[in-house]
């Protein structure tokens, strides 16, 4: 019979980490050695007790939310990299919003300008409706979701969508539209004729677009549906997809 096994060998045997040969030798010894059997039982009880006590540190893990945060973190990095390569383009966008920002102290658009970044995260909701001259702003998602409400647009206004890899909803309105925004939502009302552009993050959980209260388009898990029909891409060479004026 083999010598008394060490504690480490017994532990390895318990954990199924011994080779077949070592397992056979250990089992042969254990059959004839009550002391080692008792020590093995102690080690087993100790392992079970430790696992039982550690179980109190069992966090509630929301895997979906964590995966979403990971994608957000990655998207922010991509925006950061993209930003450094597109400084000239950023200046053009800033100038587009400048007139609106000057007239709107404290508005989200002003925050967007003051931040020296082309992307602003709207942290707190504002109920203040503001008139703009062709505003461009960014609306952060909330838990991966956003809602866009378009009300009483000009009869000649056109709404166009484009899917992007960015982290937030980008909005460009025609002149004269009134805006209300907050984290995860934007409400746009009125404005002159022209194109209202919405850039939607492909990785959003859901972005819903309502026109005069009626759901017209929804982006879900990377698929855009307009009036319930999945849409792949528009005729526009830049990828813009236009919303039909009337529901299909």
């Amino acid at each position, binding site marked *: 019979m083999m010598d008394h096994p*060490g*504690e*480490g*060998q*017994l*532990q*390895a045997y318990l*954990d199924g*980490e011994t080779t077949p040969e070592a397992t056979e030798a250990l089992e042969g010894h254990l059959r004839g050695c009550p002391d080692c059997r008792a020590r093995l039982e102690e*080690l087993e009880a*100790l*392992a079970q*007790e*430790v*696992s039982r*006590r*550690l179980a*109190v*540190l*069992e*966090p*509630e*893990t929301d*895997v979906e939310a*964590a*995966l979403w*945060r*990971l994608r957000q*973190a*990655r998207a922010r*990095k991509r925006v950061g990299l993209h930003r450094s390569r597109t400084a000239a383009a950023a200046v053009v966008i800033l100038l587009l919003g400048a007139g609106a920002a000057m007239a709107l102290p404290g508005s989200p658009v002003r925050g967007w300008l003051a931040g020296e970044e082309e992307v602003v995260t709207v942290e707190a909701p504002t109920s203040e409706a503001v008139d703009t001259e062709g505003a461009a702003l960014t609306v952060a998602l909330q838990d991966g979701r956003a809602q866009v409400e378009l009300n009483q647009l000009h009869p000649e206004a056109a709404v166009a969508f484009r899917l992007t890899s960015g982290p937030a909803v980008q909005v460009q309105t025609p002149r004269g539209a009134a805006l209300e925004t907050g984290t995860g939502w934007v409400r746009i009302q009125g404005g002159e004729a022209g194109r209202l552009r919405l850039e939607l993050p492909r990785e959003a959980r859901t972005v819903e677009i309502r026109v005069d209260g009626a759901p017209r388009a929804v982006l879900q898990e990377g698929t855009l549906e307009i009036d319930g029909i999945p849409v792949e891409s528009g005729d526009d060479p830049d990828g813009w997809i236009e919303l039909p004026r009337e529901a299909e």
Partner: protein
Amino acid sequence: MNLEQLFQDVYPGLHRYCVRMTSDSDVAEDAAQEAFVRLLDRRVEGDPAGLRAWLFKVATHLIRDRVRIRENRSRLLEENPVLPSSPDGPGEALERGERVARVREALESLDERDRTLLLLREEGFSYRELADAVEVKATSVGTLLARARQRLANALDGEETT
């Protein structure tokens, strides 16, 4: 690599491991997420078991670094205590909070190698993976593990008798 599948498979255990390794819930969550960010940034490739081991190893280093920074700033460990929510009433919640604190203190009384070994084993890592994680021989893991468990049990019993 299917990120979503890997995340679904690994994240819950990784998060639990991080929560047990540190008393700061923010550090735990950040470390678990940052490990995945680095996996993607560095385009690490391998089989699922290898990627899982890599993620746990990176998270262990991240926690160590962040705890060190936190300690340098003299922040209290209890600043963001991890107290898993429970549907219990106030009395049960208090008792549960005490149990959490007791286990937490006992874990913190272990040295880092013992704590890492013990918690990685709880997540089902093999002796070979444990040996790689704490840089010891695979043949030493059984002994180290048995002693780490005994030290934890002693620390828990000590807490209870005082």
